[in-house]
């Protein structure tokens, strides 16, 4: 019951840890960035998940809707901002990876490190 009641929290944790593991364990820089994206997506899911109110409808005022239970729009707004931040970070990260490939010839972290140490 605990699993089903808190289903969205379990999803959040799983994806968070998958992303975190990828960032730490993988040597390939692109994979690291993918892990980072996963990591951030998990947080988005957390926020959006809590925005849903039981029995709540879309948070839009309209004369035709006569209920007064709405889902919370604020977290969705917050996440829009966070998604933009995430996109910028990924874009910047990828640009850096392109530059690294140009100057080092490799995007594997261990190879880059050994090149730097042998300098």
């Amino acid at each position: 019951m605990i699993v089903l009641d808190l289903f969205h929290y379990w999803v959040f944790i799983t994806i968070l840890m998958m992303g975190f593991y990828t960032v730490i364990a993988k040597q390939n820089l692109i994979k690291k960035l993918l892990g980072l994206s996963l990591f951030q997506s998990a947080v988005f899911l957390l926020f959006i998940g809590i925005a849903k109110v039981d029995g709540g409808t879309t948070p839009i005022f309209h004369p035709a809707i006569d209920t007064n239970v709405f889902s919370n729009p604020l977290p969705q707004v917050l996440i829009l901002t966070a998604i933009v931040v995430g996109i910028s970070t990924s874009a910047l990260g990828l640009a850096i990876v392109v530059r690294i490939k140009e100057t080092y010839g490799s995007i594997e972290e261990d190879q880059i490190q050994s090149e730097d140490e042998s300098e």
Partner: protein
Amino acid sequence: MNLALHYPILQVIIPMLVAPIALLMPNRKLAWALATTTSLCAFALAIAIAQLVLEGSSHAYPLGDWPAPFGIELRVDSFSAIVLIIVSGASTAALLAGFQSLALEIDQDRATLFYAAWLLALAGLSGIVVSADAFNIFVFMEIASLASYILVAGSSDRRALPAVFKYLIMGTIGATFYLIGVGLLYIMTGTLNLADLEVRILLVEDQAPILMAAGFISVGLALKAAIFPLHAWLPNTYAYAPHAVTAFLAACSTKVALYVFLRIDFFVFQRTLTEHASQFSIYLLPLALAGILYGSAMAMREPHTKRLFAWSSVAQIGYIVLGASLISNAGLSAAIMHMFNHALAKGAIFLAVVVLASQCSTLGPNALNGLGRKHPVVGIAFVVAGLSLVGIPGTAGFISKWLLIEAILDYHRWSVPLLIVVLLSSIMAVVYVYKVCEALFFKTPDTANSQPLPRLAVVTVLVVSAANLVFGMAPGLPLELANSAASVLLEHTL
């Protein structure tokens, strides 16, 4: 219209609006001039704000006149004021000193982008300091971080690229942890405004999510602030960034993260979580000590000059955390004062590196040999800054060291071990500062060529070095602000 009311938002808006204008500049010189002028305006604004809040008052600024907690609020008090002075001062000094150095390191076609990014970084850092809304802090934090990544990546040294990649990964993880923490707080209280959070958290029954939120926020901000053991991104980033960027970031980026850390912890958590005060000390104190010792030890054996001083920064951040974890008026004053004094000392050192690096093609281990003798004025400025870092009486560093030791002596329980660590690390600081000074003055220079020193840079270095002495003998304004900030923070504890 009373312009003073709008200072908080102006501090953020001016650099932010000028950034795209810098992009439109036709050449490097104009872009630099625009950036420097904006930075000077920001500095003047910061001083004005400091005058406003000197009596300990705080000014709230609701954006768009939407009242808190519905709208986003900015708030400045003495703690914000001193950090704003550090940020804008560091930016101005680094820009003034960095013109020739950046001209050498940044390509012409990227120069305008670089200066635009600098202004965004300034806007982001200022925004973090004035925000009173937890999510707003996140947004500005990411603006500042992304802009910093761009600044660091502009280096002509290719080793900056893996360094900034690591910085990006760790910084984003830190920011995301912070976001998770804020999310958890929002779930439990329904508000993001710091002042409102403080009130609403008291009404929450289940303390477990609050505790978790505190953990996530602390870890996230510790990553940004390079508190041991989450400091791994710092040495290489400072070492390989363009020299002026190092001067800018070393003086202020970690201080801002520490500022947020202290503010959120004291304003939101201290009163609500049971036993939080002692938990704070128990977790942070050993980390602070470890950071101090590890940073100083690594600095002693580091051949690369910039990385040596980057490790020194890790140790100095340890001092700040040490002072804060004592949770006393004396400790917090010492910590905040050290933020200011370390920015002065480390800033002067890295600015001197900016000047001296114009004499050598690459900054390898022996690159700075003999340069102190060739250019004695800069050499002496470097020595003064080094003495301030060590904490010799008469310099600014001594004031914060004295305050820190006084706070430790008051702390009774662990006084002696803490004192031993602080004194031991001072000796280690003497060793690594001496190492660099000896190389500067007594070793023979590698190359015989000698180009003229950039004059504006030399003047900036002299001014900042002299400031170390001035604030060492007359700490007036920063000390008042630090004391006031400490009392403001402590008002929010049990």
